[in-house]
């Protein structure tokens, strides 16, 4: 007995070593069985909590990247929607003589009046408190931005490209007394919006005819009349309607759809048929 204890004491380290290695081997061989083991796996609670925290952190850090990918996804979807929106099918007009279409189908033809190219951009400078407010974006002439392109955000209208350098562009936002936006109400009334440069959250539509059928909460959209903005982009919603006592006309207060204070990403729209239309309209004015 004494000898046995002595042997154990003599070889205690070796016995412990072999014992622990056997435990490891048992753990390894058990992991190949279907039951799995609950003790040593990343499914146990403590490890799970740490991995959850890590994943939360990585999720937060990668939010910017995710934003960019969503932006590109949106750009693609908008383009797809536009394919259906900007074509005008004249198939019901029997009176007109049909033009021969390229596909050989002579029963109807399709007129395209706009074809937009979307470019995504990130806002790097922004102001809301001047008389004319400019937004700087990180895209310039190198990426194909030119003067006069319209800019929208995910929620509504933003403005128009005013100055372009190689890598940056400056957008005159609709918070400006320089540009008025041609707007359309739900009942079809056209009028332009103005901004009284007091508050970035309030737009005005002055001198609306009294018979205009408008309620609080109505949406106001752009029209394509000015050839600056694409049609049917949300400008804002009506927050209150006021009647001017002097001339009996209505004045509408709008809340812009774009939150100019927290603008981060915008789309720059290039109308590929825009220059042609502009040239034509200028010709008519000159004569």
């Amino acid at each position, binding site marked *: 007995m004494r000898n046995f204890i002595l042997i154990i004491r003599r070889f205690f*380290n070796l016995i*412990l070593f072999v014992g622990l*290695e056997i435990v*490891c081997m048992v*753990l*390894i061989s*058990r992991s190949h069985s279907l039951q799995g083991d609950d003790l040593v796996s*990343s499914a146990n609670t403590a*490890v799970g909590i*740490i991995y959850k925290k890590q994943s939360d952190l990585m999720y937060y850090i990668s939010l910017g990247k995710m934003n960019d990918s969503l932006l590109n996804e949106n750009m693609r979807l908008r383009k797809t929607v536009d394919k259906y929106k900007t074509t005008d099918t004249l198939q019901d007009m029997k009176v007109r003589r049909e033009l021969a279409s390229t596909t050989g189908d002579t029963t109807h033809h399709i007129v395209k009046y706009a074809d937009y190219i979307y470019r995504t951009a990130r806002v790097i400078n922004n102001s809301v408190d001047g008389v004319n407010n400019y937004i700087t974006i990180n895209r310039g002439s190198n990426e194909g931005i030119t003067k006069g392109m319209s800019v929208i955000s995910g929620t509504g209208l933003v403005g128009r490209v005013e100055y372009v350098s190689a890598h940056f562009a400056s957008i005159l936002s609709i918070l400006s007394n320089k540009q008025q936006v041609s707007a359309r109400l739900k009942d079809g009334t056209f009028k332009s919006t103005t901004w009284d440069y007091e508050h970035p959250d309030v737009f005005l539509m002055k001198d609306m005819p009294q018979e205009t059928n408008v309620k609080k909460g109505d949406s106001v959209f752009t029209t394509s009349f000015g050839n600056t903005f694409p049609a049917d982009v949300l400008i804002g919603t009506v927050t209150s309607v006021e009647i001017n006592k002097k001339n009996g006309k209505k004045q509408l207060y709008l809340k812009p759809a774009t939150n100019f204070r927290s603008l981060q990403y915008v789309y720059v729209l290039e109308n590929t048929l825009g220059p042609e239309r502009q040239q034509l309209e200028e010709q008519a004015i000159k004569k």
Partner: protein
Amino acid sequence: MNVYAKNILRFVVIVFLQVLILNRITLHWFPEPAGALFIPAIYPLFILLLPFETPVWVLLLSGFTLGVTIDSFMTTAGMHACATIFMAYLRTNVLNALMPRNLSEYINQQPSIKTMGWMPFLVYSGFLLLIHHLVFFSVESWSAASIGSLLLKIAASFVTSMAFILVYILLFTRQNVARA
């Protein structure tokens, strides 16, 4: 700082470094399939840096704890523990061979570049790390079928892990202020 508190803190820091940062880095030195993915390992450093006079059974138990902790994070069920225990068992012998005096004479000291010098420390950590990687990758593949790619993997992982361990040592060694 108390030697126990210091080592427990180091355990936590090294495990978190390994699990939360290095496990996210997957490297391959050669195009697939010869140089399959591998992950640099710095956690053996905890065993390497325990004080000189640590008894073997403490080394073995702490190696087991460390290995099982890493295993539960990486779902490798005992493979890391197996390799770490092997390394911990050999540590005392390697140190005895390298150090001029008996290990019990180095009181309150731990293996480091300062106490051992550059060359002995590199030999010490390199040898034990190589043992660790040999055992780990052999247990992981558990066959002699692809011995060539196994050796290649061990060599590549060893070089990378050694680089990471040196970076850790250089970062966390207190510099001698009086030198300037």
